């Protein structure tokens, strides 16, 4: 929860739903959205935006295609119907995710800053009210069956399918409205969503946090089917349920609000003194089980697993991608690196609430900031980006993670925003392998180092381990969600589309290191060597300069240089604007495909060029004039000459392997 000014607090969280999505892509992804929304409105905040960071195996693999299409449909089907816009994210295809996709979902919510409600039970005699869907046998053992096991055997995976929950966005939509109405009316002492381990987790956690106990009456829990055993009722992960702690005096009002929204509400427990969680058959009936609530919450075991770098670590560092044979046809390689994710986000409602000034497809999403209670426009905006780069982190988890944070910072700068708070979702392989544990440890250190250097607080996170399939661990994949703020938004940020006649410049130092690049991985399967160095001071200067130029409306277009390097950045800008590029001073494929940090491509009206160059000089940032936006070709003297039509063809037929396969 972050204070974003004007009396508004923003709740932000990111979570993985990788394993359920591997087994049942549609419902796995759908319930991932449902779960993260409940995490946000349980704090009292109205969810206003979702972002998805998605990673799949290559589309040439039929199962990976099935997973990709199912996940996107699931997010579309659930997210659109539940009425929260999906405003951005990433879609990445890499062989490392074959059989083990990553589905990371981020949610942002807003609330009046003075209305924070915690998932805490207090006040002996208060009542625990279960809101929402009836409890069924779906998802029993979901967390333990799915989250903590590796994959490989298809038959066994089919057996796990019943452990994936089934989502109902209409139930969730009514639950959101009812819960926010309860919070508005001040009727709730504490509230928590039911996620992993269902009622067991929600009751023990709320009681433990409040330092109290709770009697839970399993007989009072509405059920979907007869004959359920008490343990099934307690551990079911049926979706769209919340547990609210309310005072007995307010119960009638609580039930009336739930009735208005057709949300089922049942008293299933009461707060007791002492710290015991007691499960009973009937509120005063037989005790079926009891234990200290805290034993399920705070007293969880803590591990310090062995960790060590891979045996070939030193040899791998010495194997630079700069030694790979140069491309036979630079243009053909560039075309192969282009991918257009619009087939994904076109299926998501990304405009709901009329806040989306920059939607999916840009460097970062920009949302108008309106007060959640009054609707008053603050004239300011929030910016959001999610970023991950498995290639960088496979080469060097520590430096790769730091570079990922740096990319997020620069993405925000490209829309004129400064960073405010970071959340992360750490996706790794099996931590019982010391090499994986080492990757994890290095990545966390790299994140800490970068956040420290940029002065960005890390306000939340989620860890997904055991991303292992057929004995293959995924590349380490820390995913960053970065929230930023734009202090005054009076016009739409420039975006990627340049105008005919613009001068095209690169802000930042030139570099040619190819290790960790998309080009090296895609053309040669190469993920070794040493990553280009990151200079924090230089990076801060570039980001500050770019954010300032955007705020002052000095750029026609701007795009950060990341995956695919300068080449992909230029090709994307040409594709989006329908105007070509004529340039020079890009020396060889290494400069074209290097993903060295702290660089952006900017397009500038020729009249403003001196002013922009002066600003760069004043900030100590290098400027290179590389060409002109014009014509119908993407041409770099001595290196590359592609027709815009070929680029548009590749760009306009998204997922070529999908559609032509």
């Amino acid at each position, binding site marked *: 929860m972050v204070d974003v000014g004007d009396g508004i607090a923003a709740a932000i969280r990111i979570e993985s739903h990788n394993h359920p999505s591997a087994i049942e892509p549609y419902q796995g992804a759908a319930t991932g959205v449902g779960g993260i929304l409940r995490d946000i409105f349980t704090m009292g905040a109205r969810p206003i935006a979702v972002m998805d960071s998605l990673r799949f195996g290559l589309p040439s693999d039929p199962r990976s295609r099935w997973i990709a299409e199912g996940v996107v449909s699931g997010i579309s*089907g659930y997210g659109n119907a539940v*009425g929260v816009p999906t405003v951005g994210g990433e879609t990445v295809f890499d062989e490392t995710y074959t059989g083990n996709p990553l589905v990371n979902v981020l949610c942002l919510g807003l609330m009046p800053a003075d209305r924070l409600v915690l998932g805490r039970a207090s006040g002996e005699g208060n009542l625990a009210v279960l809101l929402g869907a009836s409890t069924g046998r779906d998802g029993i053992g979901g967390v333990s069956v799915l989250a903590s096991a590796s994959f490989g055997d298809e038959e066994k995976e089919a057996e796990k399918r019943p452990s994936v929950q089934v989502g109902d966005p*209409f139930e969730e*939509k009514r639950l959101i409205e009812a819960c926010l109405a309860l919070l508005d009316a001040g009727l709730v002492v504490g509230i928590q969503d039911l996620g992993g381990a269902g009622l067991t987790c929600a009751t023990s956690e709320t009681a433990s946090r409040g330092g109290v106990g709770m009697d839970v009456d399993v007989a009072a829990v509405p059920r979907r089917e007869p004959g359920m055993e008490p343990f099934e009722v307690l551990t079911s992960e049926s979706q769209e349920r919340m547990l609210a702690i309310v005072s007995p005096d307010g119960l009638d009002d609580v039930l009336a609000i739930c009735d208005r929204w057709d949300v089922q509400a049942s008293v299933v427990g009461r707060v007791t003194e002492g710290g015991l969680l007691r499960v009973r058959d009937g509120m005063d009936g037989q005790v079926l089980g009891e234990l200290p609530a805290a034993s399920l919450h705070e007293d969880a075991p803590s591990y310090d697993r062995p960790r060590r770098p891979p045996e070939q670590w030193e040899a791998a560092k010495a194997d630079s991608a700069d030694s790979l044979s140069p491309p036979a046809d630079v243009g053909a390689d560039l075309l192969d690196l282009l991918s257009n994710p619009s087939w994904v986000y*076109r299926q998501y*409602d990304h405009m709901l609430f009329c806040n989306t000034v920059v939607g999916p497809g840009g460097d970062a999403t920009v949302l108008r900031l309106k007060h959640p209670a009054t609707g008053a426009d603050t004239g300011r905006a929030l910016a959001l980006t999610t970023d991950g780069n498995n290639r960088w982190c496979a080469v060097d988890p520590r430096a790769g993670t730091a570079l990922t944070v740096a990319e997020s910072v620069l993405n925000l700068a490209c829309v004129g925003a400064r960073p405010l708070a970071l959340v992360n979702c750490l996706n790794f392989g099996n931590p019982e392998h010391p090499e994986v544990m080492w990757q994890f440890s290095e990545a966390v250190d790299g994140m800490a180092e970068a956040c420290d250097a940029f002065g960005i607080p890390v306000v939340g996170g989620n860890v997904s381990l055991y991303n292992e399939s057929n004995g293959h661990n995924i590349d380490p994949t820390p995913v960053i969600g970065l929230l930023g703020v734009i202090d005054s938004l009076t016009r739409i940020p420039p975006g990627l589309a340049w105008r005919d006649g613009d001068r095209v410049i690169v802000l930042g130092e030139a570099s040619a290191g190819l290790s960790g690049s998309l080009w090296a991985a895609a053309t040669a399967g190469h993920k070794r060597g040493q990553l280009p160095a990151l200079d924090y001071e230089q990076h801060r200067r570039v980001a500050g300069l770019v954010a300032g130029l955007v705020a002052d409306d000095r750029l026609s277009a701007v795009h950060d240089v990341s995956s695919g390097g300068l080449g992909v950045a230029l090709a994307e800008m040409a594709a989006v604007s329908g105007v070509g590029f004529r340039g020079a001073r890009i020396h060889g494929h290494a400069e074209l495909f290097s993903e060295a940090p702290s660089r952006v491509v900017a397009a500038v009206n020729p009249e403003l060029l001196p002013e922009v160059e002066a600003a760069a000089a004043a900030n100590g940032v290098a400027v290179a004039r590389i060409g002109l936006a014009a014509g119908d070709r993407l041409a770099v003297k001595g290196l590359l000459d592609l027709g815009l039509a070929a680029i548009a063809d590749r760009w306009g037929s998204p997922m070529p392997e999908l559609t032509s396969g």
Partner: protein
Amino acid sequence: MTTRVGVVVFPGSNCEHDVVEAVDAVGGSGELLWHKDKSLGGVDAVVLPGGFAHGDYLRTGAMARFSPIMDAVTQFAQDGGPVVGICNGFQILTEAQLLPGALYKNQGLKFLCQPSVLRVESTDSVLTRRLNVGDELNVPINHFEGNYVCSEEVLAVLRENDSIVFTYQDNPNGATADIAGIRNENGNVVGLMPHPERAAHPLLGSTDGALMLKGLIGID
């Protein structure tokens, strides 16, 4: 006097606040009406907003037409009151028989959220009375079931009565005759798939939707 526009909230609706904000921004006064109410509370115009009324279960709009407020909406429409259905609201109006035809799933069987360019075909409606035939408007779409279908007889009547209000320049969903929006015979009931409220602020890239809403609240 400020025009009061009642925006009906069904469980599962989600564009109601956006419509109220856009109506207020053009000088009207938006207010929410609850689907279980039986009266419209004296509003001057009614909007059925976008979303997923009753979860779109069974069929889009099929259950919403039975919500208690729909009797009052039908009476209001029959008495000549302005009624606009946007997206899911359009689907509800066809289910309620206030407009002919139906909305099928998009031709590509995918949900589509994207910009669209509309052409004004008739100015004889509460949304287009301050526009000209042939005007091009940038107003985004956001739907899975936006493929307008009707019998050839109904299409002939729509054409004869000048009841096709908007067509798509680049038909995104397979709609019959590129139809994006239609009106009833009197022009007081209009249904359209695109979302005018999403094109009512300069920072959203288009204010063409505001031109429609100004027509609704009768401001010139």
